[in-house]
């Protein structure tokens, strides 16, 4: 898609993959952070991580296994917290521990028994050996994420503002929540091979947290977060591959540094100067 502008095929694919993954993750990240359900994104990322590790172990396509694992978790989340009669955060904590343990079990087993399977991409991401189909899938999910926000903007805004008020306004909150979970599940599963299971959470949370420092409207968040994520990810992929640096960790560190700067210069946190006495 960007071949016209980037001659190097490897860098071109890496830039495309990072661009689409960061757009989808950051858009969903705005919803996750504003709804205070970051732990759902965190757990979902690790479910995809566990699924991909299990896929590698059993010789199944890692992306399909990751999608299945994160979708299963998304489907289980609601009924499980209803039946267990426990706070969702507790359920998520348990599921996070379980998915992390499953992922570590398969990765450790494959490394211990030297099966010849390279598991480092699952942990830290790999932007070099990407197929065209991976990039197309990411392009589709990022377009779907954008369309989802455009079509259901008012419903998403109301749910983010206050779930109870949204429901009392006659908005069907549950289908919106399920759609959000479904989108997160697919996005994290498709992004895991590029970004890595350990770092995916940064893409889901940090761009939205950076945008939050500057925006007074939800619309602004949905524009600024993907803009920041896309710019940092594309620049990071380009620099990382040009200077043989690990791409995903480089971008993750850049996001974190940018977040610190954003907090320092945030106009929302500025204390208005007092009016001098006698005036």
């Amino acid at each position, binding site marked *: 898609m960007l071949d016209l502008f980037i001659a190097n095929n490897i860098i071109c694919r890496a830039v495309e993959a990072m661009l689409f993954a960061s757009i989808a993750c950051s858009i969903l990240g705005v919803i996750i952070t504003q709804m205070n359900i970051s732990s759902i994104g965190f757990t979902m990322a690790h479910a995809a991580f566990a699924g991909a590790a299990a896929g590698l172990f059993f010789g199944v396509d890692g992306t399909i296994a990751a999608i299945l694992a994160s979708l299963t978790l998304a489907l289980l989340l609601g009924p499980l917290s209803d039946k267990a009669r426990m706070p969702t955060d507790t359920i998520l904590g348990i599921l996070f521990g379980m998915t992390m343990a499953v992922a570590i079990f398969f990765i450790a087993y494959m490394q211990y028994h030297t099966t010849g399977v390279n598991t480092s991409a699952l942990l830290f991401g790999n932007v070099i050996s990407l197929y065209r189909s991976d990039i197309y899938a990411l392009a589709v999910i990022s377009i779907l994420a954008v369309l989802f926000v455009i079509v259901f903007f008012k419903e998403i805004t109301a749910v983010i*503002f206050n779930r109870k008020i949204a*429901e009392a306004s006659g908005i069907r909150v549950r289908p919106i929540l399920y759609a959000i979970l479904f989108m997160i599940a697919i996005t994290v599963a498709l992004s895991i091979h590029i970004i890595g299971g350990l770092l995916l959470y940064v893409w889901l949370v940090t761009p939205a947290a950076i945008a939050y420092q500057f925006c007074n409207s939800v619309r602004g968040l949905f524009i600024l977060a993907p803009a920041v994520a896309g710019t940092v990810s594309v620049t990071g992929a380009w620099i990382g591959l040009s200077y043989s640096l690990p791409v995903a960790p480089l971008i993750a560190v850049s996001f974190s540094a940018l977040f610190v700067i954003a907090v320092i210069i945030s106009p929302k946190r500025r204390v208005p100067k007092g009016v001098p006495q006698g005036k």
Partner: protein
Amino acid sequence: MTKGMIQLSDVQTAYEGSALPVIRGISCSINPGEFVIIGGPNGAGKTTLLETINGLLPIVSGRVVTGGIDVAKDGNSVRRRVGYVIQNFSFDPLAPFIVSDVVMMGRFGLLGYGRRPGEEDRRIAEEAMDLLGIRDLADRPIGKLSGGQQQKVLIAQSLAKQPDILLLDEPFSNLDLATRDFICGILADLTRRGCTIVMVSHAFDALPENGSIRVIVMNDGTITFNNTCSASEVEGRVRGLSGRSNA
């Protein structure tokens, strides 16, 4: 004339996961344009009753018909037409919501999926802000307003729905006396225009002494008093119940 009517027949409601019903065997009827105040001690089931009327809680038994619609069958249609001001709210000072956006949310349920608010919706939202005297706050983030101003914004949001029925849960909790009287005036005007108002409140001194307002007193999930009465009479009844429940 069913638009503003509320009918409850032997209703029991329970929260999800709760073994015991919170309100038990309540029957009552509220007519269009009536102003009803619900009082009672803490935990009496007042908020639960509002959420039952609004279809926000599952009905264990009995029947609730709000505005001519059975809430168990089509709660969402009920909620689109009923304004509801919640009791507990708190907003992050940095939250990305300005007042005009929050008031406009009152129109969202009426629009349906995929439709954006139009010029008419904007006009109605602005009218609601004008009515509450918060037009000058339109571009301010809601999290940076005082509790009383936030309360006014939420009332304006409910009014932007142009509801036939308005449910208010402790709407005066953050308001000073002057603002409370101002809001009371707006509510009285709404009832004159045919809007039914059901309000949970402990501010009985706001009631007119001539006893023209219906008062429902609740205790332990049941209705113990349901009639028009004066402020002093209802305050005495509620105090008596509070004393018993605290003993």
